[in-house]
């Protein structure tokens, strides 16, 4: 493989989402976003709910991701996620419904409830899906 490309592989438990050659990857790490260029030092990080970007030439593309890991090697980035969707795969209706449902439940719960954070996370995922279709 040429030395100025990165092989980006994204997989969720159900399927392989993506396997492409890219020039740059920007991923939402647990301790903040990080960018990966070819030749990056081996690096293992936790990924949070958010938008993973990758650049092919001048084109910037997005993937909606949820919790998972990224393993970075010099010319390879492997991302293992609970769920990942390409923008065109997102079901906007479903995401909207999930958002409303989570908002409704959150209104009834207080901070002490155990479910509160689960609902908050659900809301997070829904918002993430919605926002990525708007890019």
């Amino acid at each position, binding site marked *: 493989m040429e030395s100025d490309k990165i092989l980006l*592989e994204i*997989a*969720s*438990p*159900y*399927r*392989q989402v993506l396997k492409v050659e890219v020039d740059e990857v920007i991923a939402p*790490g*647990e*301790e903040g976003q*990080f960018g990966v260029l070819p030749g990056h*030092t*081996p*690096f*293992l*990080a*936790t990924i949070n709910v958010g938008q993973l970007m990758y650049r092919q030439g001048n084109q910037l593309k997005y993937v909606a991701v949820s919790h998972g*890991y990224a*393993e970075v*090697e010099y010319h390879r980035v*492997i991302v*293992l996620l*609970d769920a990942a969707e390409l923008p065109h795969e997102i079901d906007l209706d479903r995401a909207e419904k999930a958002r409303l449902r989570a908002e409704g439940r959150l209104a009834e719960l207080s901070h002490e409830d155990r479910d509160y954070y689960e609902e908050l996370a659900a809301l997070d995922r829904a918002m993430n899906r919605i926002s990525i279709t708007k890019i």
Partner: protein
Amino acid sequence: MANLKDIRKRISSVKSTQQITKAMQMVAASKLKKAQDSVVQARPYAAKMSDVLASLAVRVKPGKHPLLERRDEKKIELMVITSDRGLCGGFNANVIKAAESFLRKKGDASEEIVLSVIGRKARDYYKRRDWEFKTEELNPGKADFSQAESIGRTVIDRYVEGETDAVYVAFTEFKSAMTQNIVVKRLLPLEPKVLAEDEVPVEYLYEPSEDALLADIIPRYIYTQVFSMLLESIASEHGSRMTAMDSATKNATEMTAKLTLLYNRARQAAITTELMEIVSGAEALN
């Protein structure tokens, strides 16, 4: 001589059974296709997960995480994965046979064994034999990662609490529609991959810390394992059902042919007898 009407009834009943087996075979074939796809689709994730874990685990000392810790196997948990539904040849019977032989082997070593069952068939079998289950789940024939996660979590909890020292799983590994292997695999404790001598582990940067990552990744790896076992078992079930129903359909065809022959013979015999009677009746008049 069999009654004509009885044979006719038999034939029609065999034929209607054949229709059912034929339909089941086709349904199983299409489900197999889907199940097979999801097995294949899930493989990259599972394979990479185990790579990541292996590269992590070679660099940490064994004592660093409870799930990497090896203890004397005094209390063993056996998880048996079968299907909910029958009519799939020897599929469930084979898994249970393997589980039984495992129980006998380990039981002789006077170890304490607890049982977990996934799938109605295993549950019913062991319930009749008065076993109690640690985990009891149905196997609806559609793998769900969150189910795998909840199963994995209970297994891990028991292991960490010291209720079990090792966890084995008896399930069917999917090779192809025709071949499936029954295996008993160890789920816990984990066995970190051993590097070959000339292999040098890559030095990674970690974010957050190594320990935090390990603590997060190991349970998830277990869920992935459980998930892929469920997927394989489901694909095997459909494969097994397809083959079983195919041979049932063939047997029905054979049986119909035999019965038809018998029917024709009986009919011929009846006609002959009738003719004889007419002829002899006519002769008596002369």
